[in-house]
């Protein structure tokens, strides 16, 4: 069987509020090797300066809908990592 090179997925990652302060940016494009999950991107963020302060399982939204960290990613997805909500 021919071996296929794993495709690279590019996703846009958004950070807000305290998480943006912690990592020092509020938006970044990351390329990960597919197939990949939300958790894989979180691991990438944790390797960045300040990223060790993210909680083990932060709230995440994929394309405007909340998801768990095992949700699979597609190229072009928008993944938002959400600090504790404080509306109202």
């Amino acid at each position, binding site marked *: 069987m021919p071996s296929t090179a794993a495709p690279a997925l590019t996703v846009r990652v958004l950070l807000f509020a305290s998480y943006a302060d912690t990592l020092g940016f509020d938006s970044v494009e990351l390329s990960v090797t597919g197939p990949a999950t939300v958790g894989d991107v979180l691991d990438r963020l944790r390797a960045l300066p300040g990223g060790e302060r993210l909680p083990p399982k932060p709230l*995440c*939204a994929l394309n405007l809908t*909340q998801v768990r960290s095992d949700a699979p990613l597609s190229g072009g997805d928008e993944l938002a990592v959400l*600090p*504790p909500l404080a*509306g109202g």
Partner: protein
Amino acid sequence: MTVYLTESPLDLGALLASVQSPERGAITCFLGTVRNHHGGRKVLRLEYSAYRPMVEAECARIVAEAESRWQVAIALRHRIGRLEIGEAAVAVVATSAHRDEAFVACRHVIEELKRRVPIWKREVYADGTVEWVGAKGSEAAGQEHSGAAGQRGSKGQAELADGRTTFGAWQRS
């Protein structure tokens, strides 16, 4: 199409007018205004920020859910930006032919907003410090919640003593 976020002062009268009708005699409102204290500290003002497109999507879902579950019409608006003490950050209006439904739906919408809508606030204290609300040491706060989050009922996530976030209703929908 309704817009749920605004940077302008909230206009309760306009929201009321948008859902009043001669068939719906019962009107309930909730206003959340900026308090001058939090956790024993004197607050000078608040700064709200939001993940805007998701706020719009999530608010639309909350309103649609309430309007399908009860015989009500809902108006909902959240303000972001800098707010002074006493100014309203959020307004909910529910109108119905029956006051029971108007009360229950209004309460439901504000609880769901607090639990599901991505808005954050930074408190500016009298001692000069500035802090994101709910983000104490951010290591423990804001975790994805696995387990029986949906059983917590109407307890607002912002009020959970341990600072963790529940998304029970969201995960159900």
